[in-house]
């Protein structure tokens, strides 16, 4: 589904953002891209949607040769890869509903159909009651979910989420990860970049570590026995998260 073959990206300053990175993500997988800030996670995402070109190497996304993609095909690629940007990139002068509608508008979907899709996406992320609010009127977790809903409306086969739990408290982070995991269960390939080790440990998914532009080691999620243990733990954390978030809302 996603394949990076010896990809290097050198920035104008001469610094390597990525050097000799090769990785493979299969269809339907959920992969964590882990590394500290500046390690190159965002650069990988930018390469995948051809927001920038690699200095060397080849990139395949859903069968497209991204590096040699003709310019007029770039919009098509981007419509097929949903992205939750690190800085969300929501339009602040549009309501939640209009923001989520945007990709459908851009893709030229019929108004009637678009409204239905947006409503179901908002339902999925649990924002139906906030649909007429503007992004600044929402909490951090809520705007994050707006961004996720927007990334989903075109039913992409691949969802890239860049630090979707970046500024969130533990409980809200868990909700977001749970949501992404649900989306993954529906068949969407999900790649999530994060530096939040608590979030990834217990989910038992593949983790790709990246440091200073290089893949350090690729560890399959903990051994089966550990995984079982962690899963229990996760459930415990989740219920805890739910109750705490419910309390927050009451306040």
């Amino acid at each position, binding site marked *: 589904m996603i394949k990076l073959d010896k990809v290097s990206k050198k920035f104008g300053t001469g610094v390597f953002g990525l050097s000799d990175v090769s990785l493979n993500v299969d269809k339907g997988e959920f992969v964590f891209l882990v590394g500290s800030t500046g390690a190159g996670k965002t650069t990988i995402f930018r390469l995948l949607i051809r927001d920038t070109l690699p200095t060397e190497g080849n990139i395949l996304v859903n069968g497209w040769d991204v590096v040699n993609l003709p310019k007029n095909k770039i*919009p*098509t690629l*981007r419509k097929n890869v949903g*992205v939750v940007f690190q800085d969300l990139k929501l*339009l602040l002068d549009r309501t939640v509903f209009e923001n989520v509608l*945007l990709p459908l508008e*851009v893709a030229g979907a019929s108004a009637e159909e678009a409204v239905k899709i947006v409503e179901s996406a908002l339902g999925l992320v649990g924002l139906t009651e906030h649909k007429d609010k503007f992004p600044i009127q929402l909490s951090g977790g809520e705007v994050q979910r707006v961004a996720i809903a927007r990334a989903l409306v*075109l039913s992409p086969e691949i969802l890239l989420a860049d630090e979707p739990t970046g500024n969130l408290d533990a409980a809200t982070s868990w909700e977001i990860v749970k949501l992404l995991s649900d989306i993954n269960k529906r068949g969407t390939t999900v790649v999530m970049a994060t530096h939040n080790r608590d979030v990834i440990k217990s989910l038992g998914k593949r983790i790709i570590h990246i440091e200073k532009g290089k893949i350090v080691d690729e560890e399959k999620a903990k051994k089966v026995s550990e995984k079982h243990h962690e899963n229990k733990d996760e459930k415990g954390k989740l219920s805890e998260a739910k109750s705490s978030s419910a309390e927050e809302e009451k306040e």
Partner: protein
Amino acid sequence: MNFTKTAWKNIRRSPYQALAAILIMTLTFLAISFFTFLLVGSSKVINYFESKPQVTAFFRNEASQEDINKLENQLQATGKIASIKFVSKNDALKIYREQNANDPLLLDLVTADVLPASFEISTVKIEDMGAISNMLNKSAIVSDVIYQKDVVSTLTTWTSAIRKIGIILVILLSLVSIFIMATIIGIKISQKKEDIEIMKLIGATNWYIRWPFLTEGILYGVIGAVVGWSIATAGLLYASPFLESFLKGIPVLPASNIDLLTLLGLEIAFAVFLGAVSSFVAVLRYSK
């Protein structure tokens, strides 16, 4: 359409920029309408003079009908003649009588013999009048040649001057309006840079982003054309009574509604062109 909606929203949210764009377009089309009226009017005046018998050649008394016919053939052979009318001595007397109907003393004094026979000649082009009158002057049977050389040549000079000034002014104003509109739309594009970037990352094609700006430019142009034309037309209708008495029976006014609407149609077409060109310049300049 969606693009029109987006364009309209853009206009509503920055009324001063929209006003500046519409005003410069209005000014351009006001000038275009004004000079069109002036040029159409003056060419109608010239047409009027051109269709009038402009050269009058009086014959000597001894001129025979044969000589006169020969001269007529010569004149026709030049190909410059629109019409020749022979006015015999009796015809001349008739005209004289009509003109002086209320002065019996003058009527008694004059008989057909006193008055000369003449040709009333109109040329196809006003410029040919000089050549024709030279030709007539050389003829042995012609005693005298008169034509309204001064009126017509002054008129022609003025018309061509007006045409030149008009064309230069319209070109300048069109350029100015293209630059001003391109700047205004460029500012708007810069203001929406972030939005545009986001839309592109989501998968918007270049044209999806360009269309609202193009629509906006075209809309400014069309509004400017309609307003400019309306002001010029209202001015023309208001001034018509005064102009009609000034022109003393030369059939220039009133302007036909069909002509005015044709002008509006052409102006709108030109406005669409100007608007599209200027916003396209802005789109290419400000959004890579």
